């Protein structure tokens, strides 16, 4: 009887281990295959030239620049709004219906399909506010999409600052905002930074929200103002792998590799900051 129970346990644990391998193995497979097939394409010209011959030759420079613009634009809107919103939830909100509704709204924003954000951005920014298909409209749309990420990570970071830090500051005569500014936010900074980096990685990789709000199929020049359209790396990968025939495998994989490196290096930095922060915590 005992023997059987341990036998069952052994089998069960092996199955659980196999399941875990099945989750993690594809990551290694995807990264490996993209690096293996893409790294030949990576040359100085590929990274710094504009696409030529219907995107079958040349580089992907405008797409890289467009993605960088979009990420910066996204952060300009989402970072202050997200951090202040998290401050409200941890420092000011009471346990009431409003707070419950805000939390529910954040959960829902996190669950809205990215293409629905695209529709919303088209409806409100492109058409209603007349920004047109532009970097401004795209950044705002992406900002709304990453807002839940910044709010939840910032809130987590603020929650982890011990209550006693606030009590000491308040007892010394500091006002509530001074307390937040000098005794709470500095300690939450690494956590907030993690959220920012995750937001960057998400904004850089998303395609559906920018389809109708900013993305240009092909632009021979760089965008000149925030009211211009821009190329973007994820959309460019979509275009050259499904819309344009006879693009070489190398260029496709090379583009995928550049996108993957941008997104994953951001995530890697976030993972490192977080683990350092956990070890550093003195309280």
């Amino acid at each position: 009887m005992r023997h059987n129970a341990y036998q069952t346990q052994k089998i069960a644990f092996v199955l659980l281990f196999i399941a875990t391998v099945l989750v993690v193995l594809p990551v290694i497979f995807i990264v490996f295959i993209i690096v293996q097939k893409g790294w030949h394409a990576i040359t100085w010209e590929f990274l710094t030239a504009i696409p030529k011959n219907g995107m079958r030759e040349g580089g992907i420079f405008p797409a890289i620049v467009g993605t960088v613009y979009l990420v910066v634009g996204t952060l300009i809107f989402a970072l202050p709004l997200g951090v202040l919103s998290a401050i409200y939830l941890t420092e000011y909100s009471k346990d009431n219906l409003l707070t419950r509704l805000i939390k529910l709204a954040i959960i829902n924003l996190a669950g809205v399909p990215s293409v629905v954000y695209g529709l919303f951005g088209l409806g409100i920014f492109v058409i209603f506010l007349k920004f047109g298909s532009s970097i401004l409209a795209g950044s705002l749309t992406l900002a709304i999409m990453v807002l839940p990420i910044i709010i939840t990570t910032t809130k987590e970071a603020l929650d982890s600052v011990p209550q006693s830090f606030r009590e000491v500051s308040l007892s010394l005569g500091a006002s509530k905002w001074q307390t937040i500014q000098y005794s709470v936010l500095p300690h939450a900074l690494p956590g907030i930074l993690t959220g920012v980096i995750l937001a960057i990685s998400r904004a850089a990789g998303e395609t559906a929200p920018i389809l109708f709000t900013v993305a240009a199929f092909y632009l021979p020049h760089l965008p000149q103002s925030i009211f211009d359209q821009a190329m973007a790396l994820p959309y460019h990968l979509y275009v050259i792998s499904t819309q344009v025939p006879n693009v070489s495998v190398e260029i496709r994989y090379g583009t995928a590799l550049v996108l993957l490196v941008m997104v994953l290096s951001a995530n890697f930095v976030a993972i490192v900051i977080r683990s350092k922060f956990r070890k550093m915590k003195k309280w």
Partner: protein
Amino acid sequence: MNLKTFKEFLIEKLIFLSGVTSIMLVILIFIFLTKEGLSLFKAVSLKDFLLGHYWYPISEPSQFGILPLILGSLFVTMGATIISVPIGVASAVYIAEIAPPRMKEVLKSGIEILAAIPSVVIGFIGMTTLVPFVKNALNLPTGLTAFSGSVMLAFMAMPTVVSIAEDALNAVPKKYKEAAFALGATHWQTIWRVVLRAASSGIVAAIMLGIGRVIGETMAVMMITGNAARIPTSLFQPVRTLTATIAAEMGETVQGSDHYHALFAIGIVLFVITFIINLIADFAVHRKLK
């Protein structure tokens, strides 16, 4: 009121406004979707829209039945759920209960990286590796099928399922396990009969959020499932999902046309579906806490 308290007053108002932004955004999204989407129902009845068998938006006369698209989304989502839920929950159990601490960190980082891979990259990899493989292995006319979409989407749902299920497992009070061990149960008996049961509502939440992730997924689906707007009869046919329809067609419609309104109406359907899924998940999480 002196300048300093005035400044403090302003900042606190600003913080409050930012706090309620999320609610305003959810309302705004709903308003803008309905503003553009409801006009469709001057031309098409709700019943013909939801249950119509034909999606011919640009033929004359046009037809806006989204049943094939709903079924397309349903097929892909069901396939992805069947694959990702057992594997995802099992791996959450392994990570939460069995893996040694260092391995746990590595596995969690790996899953985080999987979550970070952009959907267009998943779609691209699916197109270049899985799609030809499915075509040859199953001897199909095309590998662009609901099945291929399900497999790739299962990977994309996995991080959500694993991380939320793992949180639920970690939240099970230690004394439950200690009590089971004290009664002589093996580690596996404890997991199977005590821990999994205690964490069940959290696991339900994980499954719901995983489903929500799959239904809303757009780019990978559009690149892998073949986009045929027909009522599917098997997993091994091309299908077109709600999300892919919006993404593929919005660029080509005339603003203010019936087609344009119909795509926003699909957006409303998606918004409502994900809203309900999130409510159920939230409900499950809060039931667990009580």
